[in-house]
């Protein structure tokens, strides 16, 4: 197939929730013609080794992402504010997922 005759399928980002995981984790990208196909592809590419129990597939162009050149204004200001970490509490042993 010549490169000019082939419209490329849109890019999707794939998130898989593992058996042990509590949240979906980004595992990679793929191309698919539509949402249905994206789910099948995600299943075939990213859960072959029995990793997952749930999949999200999201069109990459619908994700709002922070820009690398805004890294400092976005993230540097929180770098020196250690008092925002709740390190002064005693967490009981039987409270999970903290």
């Amino acid at each position, binding site marked *: 197939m010549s490169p000019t005759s082939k419209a490329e399928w849109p890019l999707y980002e794939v998130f898989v929730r593992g058996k*042990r995981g509590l949240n979906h984790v980004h595992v990679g990208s793929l*191309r698919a013609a539509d949402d249905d196909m994206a789910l099948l592809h995600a299943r*075939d*590419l990213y859960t072959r*080794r*029995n*990793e997952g129990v749930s999949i999200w597939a999201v069109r990459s162009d619908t994700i709002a992402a922070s820009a690398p050149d805004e890294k400092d204004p976005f993230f540097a200001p929180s770098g020196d504010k250690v008092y925002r970490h709740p390190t002064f509490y005693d967490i009981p042993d039987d409270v999970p997922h903290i």
Partner: protein
Amino acid sequence: MTDEDLYVDGDGARWAFGTGFTDPLHGIDQTVPDGVDAEDLAACCLALGDDALVSAQRLAEWCTRAPELEEELALANIGLDLLGQARLLYARAGRADGTGHGEDAYAYFRDPEDFRNIRLAELPGGDFAFTVARLLVLSVWRLAVCEALATAPDPVLAAIAAKSVKELAYHRRWAAEWTVRLGDGTEESAARMRAALDELAPWLDELLSDSTAARLGAEPAAVAARTRLELFHVLADAGLNRSTDVSPLDTSAFLPGSGRNGQHTPHLAPLLAELQSVARAHPDASW
């Protein structure tokens, strides 16, 4: 990592490898139960195993040749599902026929006339549309058979069938989605899909009249009726039905003979030659 490690859902397991694998035959008595005709059981396992092995080989031929990376992996995954089914079925056949042969003896050391797969499975790949059409027909049929066999009187065959049902339901979904996509797509894709259906029509009768699993609970007429109905619905969604009647899947031009009796097309021998060459060159090798 050994197979046994993989089946254990231990704390040391790492997310990236997946965990909690299950052995479909865990804890099942391998003895052929009283009241089950061992010869029927062996024949059934061999036929379904050969269908799966030959189909898996045809699907594997798409490796490095599929139209998209993602579809290549999908086809390979489906092939590997079928290969797994073949392995379990061969092991059961070796037990039931009294030879004690292992899976390799069936896969690698039989000649084409000893294979019992239906001929549709061995036809050359053709284009992607033919692969989709054939997979749709075979997975719809095999799913109907395996659902019936999930309550077979032999507990091992029943367990293999129950495992296969989940895999085949996915194969059917994949093939049905592509059938609709191509049939209801462009003029070119619809024409190719129609050509693929024409190509496989003469081989349908062999499949729909197959009675290999009849004595183990898969009643041929019921399996055939369900296969026709499901294909009718998928082909209707794809705009590919030629008639509004469920029954005329065109099987009128059927070709006599049957792979179930060891009568095969010339396409099977080269397929097996490639599949078996390494094992036959090194008969005592282990892998």
